[in-house]
């Protein structure tokens, strides 16, 4: 099929499916087919427009604009995530290169990886006595494992030819790491970073329900207000932001895909 026609068709189908979804949602809500007082799509869209048209107001911690809350969450995620990447990549390289580092660190990684990062929240609160730092700390713990594991795996499975070339030229260890190993494992690092970011974005919403402020707290707050349509607004915004973040990493991965 012609490519231009096929993309246009995909677009039309997507729009149609969205329209059908909105109408079905409205009908089901209006007829009370699910539960009574379930907000319909029209009401939700109305709220969405209201929140988006003035996103950055600030009337105290329990009444922030949705944009302000979103930025608070993004800030926590970006700080915790960046710190995690800064730790995970060097540690992963170390684990991939050294048997000793691998055998001494791997048990901790395997043991801690399956634990929900939210379990660390009370620990953070106890140690830091500060909800902001605790949020960042939880995101740090969340983000570290996928990037660490992918980096270590990348180093361990690097094409030995590259290392032999480097060695045959008499390259130092630091040159080999900077000029050969790091670029070679870029696809692995980015794959890990993409998963880390996805998980961090999942976890921040849950963590913030307990922390105050942020998009997660917004949801908790609107639950206390029994305003389900505002929760739907938050869900749409969270989903959209997560999608943009994921697409950004997808774009980076394409840039660093050496095989195509």
């Amino acid at each position, binding site marked *: 099929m012609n490519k231009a026609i096929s993309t246009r068709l995909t677009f039309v189908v997507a729009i149609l499916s969205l329209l059908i979804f909105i109408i079905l949602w409205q009908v089901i809500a209006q007829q009370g087919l699910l539960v009574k007082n379930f907000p319909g799509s029209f009401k939700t869209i109305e709220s969405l427009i209201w929140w988006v048209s003035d996103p950055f107001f600030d009337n105290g911690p329990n009444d922030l604009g949705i944009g302000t809350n979103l930025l608070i969450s993004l800030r926590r995620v970006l700080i915790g995530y960046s710190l995690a990447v800064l730790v995970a990549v060097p540690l992963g390289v170390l684990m991939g290169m050294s048997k000793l580092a691998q055998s001494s660190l791997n048990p901790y990684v395997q043991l801690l990886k399956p634990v929900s990062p939210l379990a660390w929240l009370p620990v953070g609160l106890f140690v830091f006595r500060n909800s902001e730092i605790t949020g960042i700390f939880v995101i740090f713990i969340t983000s570290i494992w996928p990037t660490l594991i992918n980096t270590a795996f990348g180093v361990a499975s690097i094409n030995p030819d590259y290392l*032999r*070339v480097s*060695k*045959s*030229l008499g390259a130092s260890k630091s040159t080999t790491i900077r000029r050969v190993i790091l670029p070679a494992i870029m696809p692995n690092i980015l794959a890990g970073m993409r998963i880390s970011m996805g998980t961090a974005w999942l976890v921040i919403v849950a963590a913030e329900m307990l922390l105050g402020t942020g998009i997660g707290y917004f949801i908790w707050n609107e639950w206390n207000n029994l305003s389900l349509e505002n929760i739907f607004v938050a869900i749409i915004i969270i989903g959209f932001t997560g999608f943009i973040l994921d697409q950004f990493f997808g774009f980076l991965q394409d840039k660093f895909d050496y*095989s195509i």
Partner: protein
Amino acid sequence: MNKKSSKTSSSNENYSHLELLNLGKIFFKEKKFIDFRSKGNRSGFEAIKDINLKIEKNTFVSIIGPSGCGKSTLLNLIAGLQAPTSGKIVIDGQAIKGPGPDRGVIFQNYALMPWLTTIQNIEFALNTVFPAKTKADVKERARKYLRMVGLEKASNKFPKELSGGMKQRVAIARALSINPNMLLMDEPFGALDALTRSYLQDELLSIWRKNKVTVVLITHSIEEALLLSDKIVLMSSGPSAIISEEISVDLERPRDREKIEQDPKYLKIKMRLEKHLLRETRAVEEVT
């Protein structure tokens, strides 16, 4: 270190350019972090043993042998990529301790870094070997060697955009750019089609003539060895492979690949090589 002196003074040397003395390599099983069972004596796989070989400066030597006999192992030892278990490797009178820029290595799978362009691959080698050179110097030199293998136009292409033959030409340019005395090649043309292969063989010969390098070429092609070499080294089947024969190829150069096949001398050596390879390959097949 003593590269300059060795290149200029060659009259009063009583040693060959490259000498392998009682060289042996045993691969030991990787030691486990904690290993209760095997205490002390580790058993290993002896790939090659008692290899003695002398190679003169600027000669072209091919090593031929059944697959799995230890040719790559031998080349890796000469390159300094692996350490021998016994014996030593002496270059210009000095035992080598590891890899060095006096030896350029070319691998079968080209081993180009896919994140670097053609010219950057060569610049990587130059920057590593000559850290003091300026950026402009490095670029100029990299260009020169790309020109030498006829790939100047592809300098900003990535390896994935090149054919197998082009990739191997880049690898050759990279190996030569650091101005080695010796070119070590491990079945460099094995993965190429016949036409590209012939083309690169001719290219290699002209480079060898112009650049004054010693070439050690591993190949499994008798025709290739005969067309290119001054000396052909035959290895026995492994394990514990040895050098079973050295054959001088005193055919006139330049050698024409069509005419040479009529030469009775050529045919005689070829028969000898075929017989040897058949015998050693049979030994491999009957053991396994």
